[in-house]
């Protein structure tokens, strides 16, 4: 049984001229231990899709099955990493990471320990007491990542996590994410990432799901069978980027 299964998921918003269809009839599965990327042009509803999976946004029709069962409301075994970081400006790094743990009802001593562990994992030692506005963009996203990892989710959802960062910071954060994911004692095994950067998807994921824009439909579901670590300049890599590009181009 797959960890996550989407069956004919659609989403539309009420709009001035009838309904605005954002996602239409999207179906795919994610297996335990997989790293899956969803790519598509802006406006294909990929971020909305992620929020539907998490349960923050209700779907219009279709089904989201988690471990074969439909989840009502928020899926507590998922954790979300935001493009805009979404850190509480009045909480310290530690406070931000502890916030979801508090929601899970974990006792204070354990919360502190876990927050410390993940602060260490993302390389933020010494910044426990810092406030978000004192951190650089890359460091803020490390906090966002640590906050999600600290929940020790079965499924990590990432919404354009590196899009708000400069290119060099994004490269190093991508590498660190892969390092954390590949560790034998990694807190997460399954990751679903949404991005509009095709190279990023191909570099990171085992599978790339290509969405069309307005409304979002699945154009292709590609298995990326390149060896890791992947070389962006290799022929195989380029073949995949060309393929995804042409898929999206054709549709437009």
């Amino acid at each position: 049984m797959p960890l996550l299964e989407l069956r004919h998921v659609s989403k539309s918003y009420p709009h001035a001229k009838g309904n605005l269809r954002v996602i239409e009839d999207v179906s795919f599965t994610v297996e335990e231990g997989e790293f899956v990327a969803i790519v598509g042009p802006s406006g294909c509803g990929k971020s909305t899709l992620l929020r539907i999976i998490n349960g923050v946004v209700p779907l219009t029709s279709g089904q989201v099955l988690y471990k074969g069962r439909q989840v009502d409301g928020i899926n507590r075994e998922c954790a979300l990493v935001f493009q805009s970081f979404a850190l509480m400006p009045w909480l310290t790094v530690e406070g931000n990471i502890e916030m979801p743990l508090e929601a899970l009802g974990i006792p204070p001593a354990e919360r502190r320990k876990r927050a410390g562990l993940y602060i260490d994992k993302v390389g933020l030692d010494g910044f426990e007491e810092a406030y978000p506005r004192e951190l650089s963009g890359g460091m803020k996203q490390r906090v966002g990542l640590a906050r999600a990892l600290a929940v020790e989710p079965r499924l990590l959802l990432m919404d354009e996590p590196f899009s708000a960062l400069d290119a060099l910071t994004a490269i190093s954060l991508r590498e660190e994410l892969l390092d954390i994911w590949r560790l034998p004692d990694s807190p997460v095994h399954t990751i679903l990432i949404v991005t509009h950067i095709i190279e990023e998807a191909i570099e990171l994921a085992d599978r790339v799901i290509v969405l069309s824009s307005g409304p979002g439909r699945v154009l292709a579901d590609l298995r990326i069978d390149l060896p890791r670590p992947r070389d962006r300049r290799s022929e195989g890599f380029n073949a995949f980027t060309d393929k995804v590009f042409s898929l999206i181009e054709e549709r437009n």
Partner: protein
Amino acid sequence: MNASAGNTRRIAGAAFSFLMLAAIIALFFAYRGRMGALHAPRLSVSIRHLPYYAFCSFYRMLAAYAIALVFSIVYGLGAARGRIWERVMIPAIDIAQSVPVVGFFPAAVYFFVSLAHGSRLGIEMAAIFLIFTSQAWNMALGVFESARTIPADSLEVFEAFGASGWLRLRRLLLPACVPKLVYNSILSWVAGWYFLIACEIITVGPARYRLPGLGSYLMETVGKSRHGEFIAGLLTLLAIIVAMDFIVWQPLSTWAEKFRYEFAAATPELEAPGETVAIVGALYQIGPTILRAFRLILAPPAMVLRAVRERIPPLRPDKFPALERGMRIAGWIAVIAIAVFFAWAIVDGLVALIRALSRPWPPAARDIPIATLASIARLLVAYAISLAWIIPCTLAASTNPRLRQRLASFAEIVGAVPATALFPVIVAFVIQVTGGMNLVSILLILTGMQWYLLFNLLAGVSQVPEDLKEAARAFGLSRVATWRRLMLPALTPSLITGSITAWGGGWNALILSEYFVYQNRTYQVMGLGQLLDVATYETGNGTMILLSLLSMVAVVIALNRLVWRRLYNVAAERYRLDY
């Protein structure tokens, strides 16, 4: 920021406040002696005269707003000219804003009545001036902020093309001010109605000067137990407010959106527009139509002007050094003349002020400390009551969009009604039921206080960033945890801004609430507002007016500087939403 530098600035700010204050009061005393007699016109409660009274009120509003508009553009752009201008002009507005306007009404009446040699024009001018002071400051600040936040590259474009000052004003500065000017104009009209009605109500009691208008009509009808006429008056007021909103403000707000500088990311429209929106949509055309009409009227004289200007060869001052020097000298002479005039007026007033204060103080002056404490206690009770219902309501609304929408529409309706229009009913009702003056006073203060808190907090709720709310939901925070970790901290700055404005409103209401005449009987309760009103309307004791006004303003400024400003700085530092 350097701590000692901050202190010096605070001390300088406080010193400046008191100087400004002294100047204002000094001006009043300089003209006090020239006060003339004024005949009060008889006030009719007949419904036939209602349109006349409505017209009187509306034209006062319009006159005050027109002055406020011109003032705010000139003052706001002036303050935005440079650091030095800003450092003097912005604190001045800060003080003007924190002074309880209603308290100055008696002073304004004396000043303008003497200026108009006792004619009715004087009291009209006083009322218009009072409404102006309730409208102008936030508009001027809005203009200043807009002009200051114009992106540097836009300014550079005009410099790069060597565009003239006039072109820059017309194509850059004025358009940039439009959104905030429209937004603040709406707020100013709400405040203006409140003070207009207050001015008119005040004049009913003492029967020395009268302002025919909706406020005096409302007070008079309640006093004579003419309920039907009272309701008719209230409905007329509401009709004017609603009509203004539909015909002027809503179209103008839509039009003003065009001038916004931010390029917000397009988000899917979540609210389905209903039928009403379509009707409003048609009305939105009115704003541009009014503008087009103006342009049509102004087009012929503008064409003549342009033709004349094209005939006359352009004046090049740099070709005539003598002319240029002469113009510069003339400018300086004008500036010096104005400065000398103001200096003279202030010195003249200060002399009168010192003379007034050096006379033996009336025995009532001994009551001032206790009266001040009593007034503060009443304000505190009203504030506590406001917080007790508004904070739970906003918190509940913050996690329940439907409740939020309902509360917002409720606030919009209630906010449109100037609370002062309901003063007569509250007075009549509570006096007939309990007779407890303290209760009446606190209730009246409450009506002047609570809405500011509600508006600010509701605005705060809508400003909580969507991604933070989403994060709270995505991580499964319970409702209480969301309030504690997200909403309360995020709302703290709004709570403090709301509290500052609420206390400002409270002080104004205080002056109306501690002393009033109802059915030819005077009702009063010990307080600063009472001392001020008694001195103005009963004893006519100038020293007492001065002392009460001074104490009130000193308390207001001290509270603002020592309590609210500090809290605000802490909140702005810790709970700011950008990072």
